[in-house]
């Protein structure tokens, strides 16, 4: 198991290892913060290569890896990237304090790259100036994508990632003394059934052949001895102490109540914003036949089946700063990416199919002849819609709103791509839980959010159940004798 930033280079190294007579190796790449807990819970891995030392130390303390086998096999460097088309770019870390940058993208604060980035900015004393402009996402690759698309004016990523993305260029590297130097410690797991092979592979990773391959990909060589360095690792040392936990929340800035509040704001606004479009669309699909109806219906329903991350990506494409629509909106002062509005929009788009489906269903069941009677009584279409159709459809509209609300509460994928994961701005319950799960100390404080989330969802579903019953009873009014 290995950190995802090694995804490109390790298979090459493995081929060299096999060519040298080593046993075939299978890899599993993911974020370090996800892999480390997996190893402690007994994932069948022989060797673990971490993207930072704190997680490795945590695994060593927890008995997941053999501490004696830990060695740093590669190093990396933080660089500041700008879109390759940017005309003018900061020249060094200190110039960031005054540089004309609207948004600076960093990886999430529990992802090693995100922590390193903040440490790097703090080490040169510009964090207070940069912080208000920071947009946070999840992984390094996501951060890179934001810069590549010009959604952010700059970002801090690993050199190795910057090298494979030709839509960005490196403005400068954080290479001053005191800047954190990201390193990749590797170790054999305590569970491995092949300790000899594991050790042999670890030695191979430190060998000259590997060194050359790493160098070609932009990695630096591993260093001898036990690693050290000023890497902030919030709450990793003593995960179970409550005092430690609260201080770790302070340092990661994770306030569960802010997440609950944001979730409610996002869900309520999404439902309100979607009300008129959903009613119109539901009515249209239930009552009208027009050319392209099945196509329209398909587009509306698509977010139900398309992975939310893809939906988020498409929304970013349509509404990002570089797009026509996004440019027009931002000229009007409406910025969608990385804002609460973006989070709301993501929640709305993903919840919209449920909203429309419920409303369409209720218009299907409301007997059209009620409307006809109203017409013959001298009341034209529009007032008939207001006085008859709408009130009769009300329980279904409310049920749709509740479903959309519930779906908004659970929205994650589209939100993290379009709006980022920013404390107090776009970090809703789902995003907060995700962030907390990435740091071991967060696991227990996650419970507040888990309970809040489950409760809210249950209340919403209960509401839905009640509303459907109301709807059924009303419909019986006239079907029953």
């Amino acid at each position: 198991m290995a950190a995802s930033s090694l995804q490109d280079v390790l298979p090459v190294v493995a081929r060299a290892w096999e060519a040298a007579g080593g046993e075939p190796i299978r890899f599993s790449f993911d974020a370090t913060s996800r892999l480390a807990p997996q190893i402690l819970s007994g994932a069948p891995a022989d060797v673990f290569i971490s993207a930072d030392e704190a997680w490795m130390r945590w695994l060593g303390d927890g008995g997941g890896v053999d501490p004696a086998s830990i060695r740093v096999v590669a190093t990396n460097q933080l660089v500041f990237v700008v879109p390759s088309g940017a005309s003018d770019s900061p020249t060094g870390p200190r110039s960031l304090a005054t540089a004309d940058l609207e948004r600076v993208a960093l990886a999430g604060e529990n992802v090693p790259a995100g922590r390193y980035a903040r440490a790097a900015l703090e080490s040169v004393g510009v964090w207070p100036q940069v912080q208000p402009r920071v947009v946070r996402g999840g992984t390094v690759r996501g951060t890179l994508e934001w810069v590549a698309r010009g959604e952010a004016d700059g970002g801090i990523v690993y050199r190795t990632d910057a090298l494979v993305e030709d839509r960005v260029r490196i403005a400068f590297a954080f290479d001053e003394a005191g800047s954190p130097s990201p390193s990749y410690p590797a170790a054999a797991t305590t569970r491995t059934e092949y300790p000899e092979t594991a050790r042999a592979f670890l030695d191979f990773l430190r060998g000259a052949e590997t060194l050359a391959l790493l160098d070609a990909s932009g990695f630096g060589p591993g260093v001898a001895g036990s690693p050290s360095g000023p890497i902030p690792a919030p709450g990793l040392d003593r995960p179970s102490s409550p005092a430690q936990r609260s201080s770790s929340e302070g340092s990661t800035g994770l306030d569960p109540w802010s997440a609950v509040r944001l979730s409610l704001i996002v869900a309520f606004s999404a439902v309100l914003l979607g009300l008129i479009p959903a009613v119109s669309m539901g009515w249209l699909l239930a009552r009208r036949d027009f050319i392209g109806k099945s196509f329209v219906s398909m587009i509306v329903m698509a977010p139900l089946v398309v992975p939310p991350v893809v939906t988020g990506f498409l929304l970013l494409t349509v509404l990002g700063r570089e797009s026509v629509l996004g440019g027009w909106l931002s000229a009007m002062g409406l910025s969608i990416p990385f804002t609460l509005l973006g989070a709301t929009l993501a929640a709305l788009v993903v919840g919209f199919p449920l909203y429309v489906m419920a409303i369409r269903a209720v218009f299907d069941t409301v007997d059209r002849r009620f409307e006809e009677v109203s017409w013959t009584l001298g009341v034209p279409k529009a007032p008939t819609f207001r006085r008859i159709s709408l009130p009769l459809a009300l329980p279904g509209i409310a049920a749709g709103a509740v479903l959309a609300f519930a779906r908004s509460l659970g929205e994650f994928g589209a939100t993290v791509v379009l709006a980022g994961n920013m404390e107090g701005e776009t970090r809703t319950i789902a995003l907060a839980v995700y962030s907390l799960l990435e740091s071991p100390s967060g696991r227990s404080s996650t419970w507040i959010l888990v309970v809040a989330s489950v409760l809210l969802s249950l209340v919403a579903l209960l509401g839905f159940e009640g509303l459907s019953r109301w709807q059924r009873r009303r419909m019986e009014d006239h079907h029953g004798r």
Partner: protein
Amino acid sequence: MDAEGGSGSGLHVQIHVPLDAIDLDVDWRPECDHVAILGPSGSGKSTLLRALAGLEPKAEGRVSFGEEVWLDSSSDVAKPPWERRVGWVPQDALLFPHLSLRENLGYAGADTSEVERMAKSLFLTDLLDRRPRFLSGGERQRVALGRALLSGPRLLLLDEPFSALDRPLRSEIAAMVRGFVRDNGTPMVLVSHDEHDAELLADERWVLVGGTLTADGRSGS
């Protein structure tokens, strides 16, 4: 062409409506003000009334009421229902389920005293604040009738309006309807499969069979 005499409802109907089983093909010009159309169920009686009310988009041909042309497919004229102002009483009442009886009766804009007077003449006074779901079938039919009468109809279209009423009540309500149409000079088309209803309300009878309307040679078959 309608200038001859003051008699007749002024209704002239020449329409074709494609239906699932048979097509409705009607060329009809009743002589009296108050007409009954008899016929077995499924013969298209309700469809004919709906076409008169302007609720059958598939109806083709020509419908005129007095000087007014309601439908003329050849020149794309189709007056919408809310401009025809017919009082349509559908077979299953179709009371608005979310409104009380009072609100149903006053739906077209009648004021409180009119609503209460109508309720009284239909024996509904005690029920005014109920919702339709708490009513019997006969009560619903009476409300639907009252609702139509209170809309100031220029033509009354009754679709089996008394099917759920027992005999004594049926006569009383029929008398009340007769009074209404006489006082207001409102023409009326009644559709029923029950000869008794026709006797109570109509001066002229027609029979609709197989989609065609023919004058009924008095009581015989």
